[in-house]
């Protein structure tokens, strides 16, 4: 595709519900990253995939957060039993192996009521 796409663009959910956020990386990009950006704050690293393995999950805030990736394609970030503090923009980025430049998607804006 032309760029990284994410869906949904906006998600409003009730506290305690589970949500799934999707990221479609640029075709051919082997690395995929998830970040969280709270209102007025910087980017918080969550998890990084190289292919479908996740060598670095150190940024996941709690065991309510999980992510998976199918091959070198789509990734899904799942947040279980959402809390109000999970409200943020969740950004996905991808990069080509051998090029550390990350290309970002537009983000999913999550609001937990």
């Amino acid at each position, binding site marked *: 595709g032309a760029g990284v796409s994410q869906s949904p663009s906006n998600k409003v959910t009730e506290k305690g519900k589970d949500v799934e956020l999707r990221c479609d990386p640029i075709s051919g990009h082997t690395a995929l990253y998830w970040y969280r950006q709270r209102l007025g*704050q*910087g980017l918080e690293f969550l998890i990084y995939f*190289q292919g479908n393995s996740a060598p670095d999950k150190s940024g996941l805030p709690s065991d309510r957060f999980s992510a998976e990736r199918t091959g070198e394609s789509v990734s899904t970030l799942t947040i279980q039993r959402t809390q109000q503090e999970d409200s943020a923009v969740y*950004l996905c980025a991808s990069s080509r192996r051998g090029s*550390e*430049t*990350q290309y*970002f998607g*537009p983000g999913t804006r999550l609001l937990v009521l």
Partner: protein
Amino acid sequence: AQSVTQPDIHITVSEGASLELRCNYSYGATPYLFWYVQSPGQGLQLLLKYFSGDTLVQGIKGFEAEFKRSQSSFNLRKPSVHWSDAAEYFCASGDLETSYDKVIFGPGTSLSVIP
């Protein structure tokens, strides 16, 4: 632990004035460095990057940055700011030898431009 700091949370400059945004990184014998810009309502866009070679890097929109290993810095500069430069600026860094592919972002500097 690896980290990237941006000492200035918010900066305000007059249109036409010069700009310097500070960035310091804390790790890596072989760092690679980026500056990204996030305009209101838009995604992150790469301004420039440094991997090796010339320590003065030119980017898009008239921006440049200088890598100074002795100071562990990678400050972003622009000689004359335009109103459209108002945005959030993020510095990011990785290390080619120890953490290939993992990039750490700084907290960001918010830039306001006044007429």
